[in-house]
């Protein structure tokens, strides 16, 4: 059966390159093979937290509390809305991400995922950060 609506081919918000879907332990992320950026869909963090048996509250709160600011780079690979800059703060340190205004997910430029992992590794949702460290072991090394 043909689906009624075809989704546009998702492209990298940063460089327009092809996104490949990574799947590990049932969690999906999109990786741009050109610039190394990562797209994390809405809900995946909760899924990881659920599997790890930890409370993702702190982490998702940190992401939700993030101050949404000026227009970021590119468009959301899911809904094609323009991404907005978002600052996530944890224990005095800050990390700037791009987020979909509709809430479809987050974009991590190359290197930002490493910052993200080190930022949250110690906290209560450390298991979620460790998951990314494990999933993207070589990429983050």
């Amino acid at each position, binding site marked *: *059966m*043909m*689906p*009624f*609506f075809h*989704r546009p*081919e998702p492209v990298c918000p940063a460089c327009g390159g*092809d*996104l*490949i*879907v*990574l*799947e*590990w*332990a*049932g969690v*999906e992320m999109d*990786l741009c*093979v050109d610039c190394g950026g990562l797209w994390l*869909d*809405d*809900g995946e963090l*909760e*899924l990881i937290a*659920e*599997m*790890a*048996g930890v409370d993702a509250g702190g982490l*998702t709160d940190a*992401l*939700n509390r993030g101050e949404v600011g000026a227009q970021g780079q590119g468009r959301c690979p899911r809904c094609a809305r323009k991404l907005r800059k978002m600052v996530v703060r944890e224990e005095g340190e800050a990390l700037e991400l791009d987020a979909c205004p*509709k*809430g479809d997910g987050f974009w991590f430029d190359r290197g930002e995922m490493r910052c993200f992992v080190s930022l949250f590794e110690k906290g209560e949702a450390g*298991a979620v950060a*460790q*998951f990314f460290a*494990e*999933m*993207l*072991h*070589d*990429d983050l090394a």
Partner: protein
Amino acid sequence: MWEAIIQNRRKARLIFVLMGLLLLVLGAVIGMAVSAYFGASFDSADSRGSVTLEMLLYGGGYGAVGAAIVWLIMTVVAVTRGEKILLATAGGREVTHSDAPQLVNVVEEMAIAANLGTPPRVFILDDPLPNAFAVGRNPEKAVVAVTSGLLRRMNRDELQGVIAHEIGHIKNLDVRFMTYAAVMVASIALISEVFLRSILYTGGSRRRRYSSSSSSRKGGGGGAALALVAVAMVFAALAPVVAHLLYLACSRKREYLADASAARFTRYPQGLASALEKIARPFKRNRMASGGDRSSKTLAPLCTVNPLAGRSRLKGWFSTHPPTEVRVQVLRSMAGGAGYADYEAAYQNVLGQGSHCLGKRTLSEEGSAVQIRQASPPEQKSPGAVGAAGGAAGVLTDPLGMQQSSGAAGEALDILGGLSGLRLIQCTCGMKMKIPEHFEKPVVKCPRCGKQHNPVMAQSLEKKVESDVEESANPKAPFRYQRKGKGWETFHCSCGQALNLSPKFQGRFIRCSKCRKKIEVMEG
């Protein structure tokens, strides 16, 4: 159980008659209003210009017949193509044993437990929100649909609980009633919508013209026509709401009944309870509430948990589903066993002594007590399990000690990947990489272990099942290999055969020694 089904049927008939009457009355009122309105405004040559009884009778009759015709057409469409349209708009895909054995197994298990003759067909919808629903006009032709979000979040016990709930709906003939009732509600909504819109967009201008030029001449007749139009407008605005309320009144009790059936079929009420908790747990941003998503208003009453919850503040009357907390509480407090009697006891316990969910005869008909079974042991990861989402974590150390979700998750993701034309590379470290069809990079590096993969090796997800049986189903597909240099090179054909290129190779094509496919060799 039979009593519950008969009771459902009786109630369904009553609701049906009421809805049918509503539909006819709506048609009649609109017909009267239209005939009076046009009669009064265009009969200006006729000096009377008043609304006659004859006019009203004719208009009402035509209106009622028109409404019945609309309903008939919609019913025919719904009965013959309904499931297909519903599933197509929701973006579903049918899966069979070979695509998703775990999921299909669970469905078949529950169909046997429910004593359904034929197991329902299974569909997967691409929606991150966990949910499930059943459609179909009779138990033999029913369809159970689950979202990918559900498969990814549930363990086996929970998945079983949700599927059993849907099978319960099918068994209790809720699905058929819901389909027909939804069509009735939709026809009523359609008729009043068309009427109201035509009044708002065209009627307005005509009325203005009418009142400026000829109202003084006509006197009372015009006023009566206008009053009738106003009455019809009010009626058209209210009818869909009333129809919807009738529809919902039936739907809530059915949820408890399906829960009771699920507890009995699975003999494990905790499974459905924890599934309901997981499903009801809000996403950090409620996607469904923001609109524009695929699960629509029409699908809502069919789902396990209302996906539109949070959109409306009015609870109770307007909800398709009873509050999830209550449902979980009832299931959780089923201590003694998993039978209907135990559900009834738990229901009374939670909602107070006076309330009843199941009739006395249902309870007395139930034979021996149904024991609650033990929770399933955590899934064992068998090496080399196809598409085991969790299996991946077992290759390296599993630092998180994660609870694995059901293996059906990986299957679902693969199937949906195939829907969007992705091809699969499976790395030895357990990472799966899905690359788009037109991907042209010569090499893909696994972000987990750093292994380099050749995208040409990628397996088409869509053809995954077929290609196992019948190799190179599409021999004419252009197949290319980009040379890296001028030296010796080895690459793999899509059939898996390793092919060598010598430094002397000058040709444009090479034929695979195994599947005889022609491969274009491009200079590096």
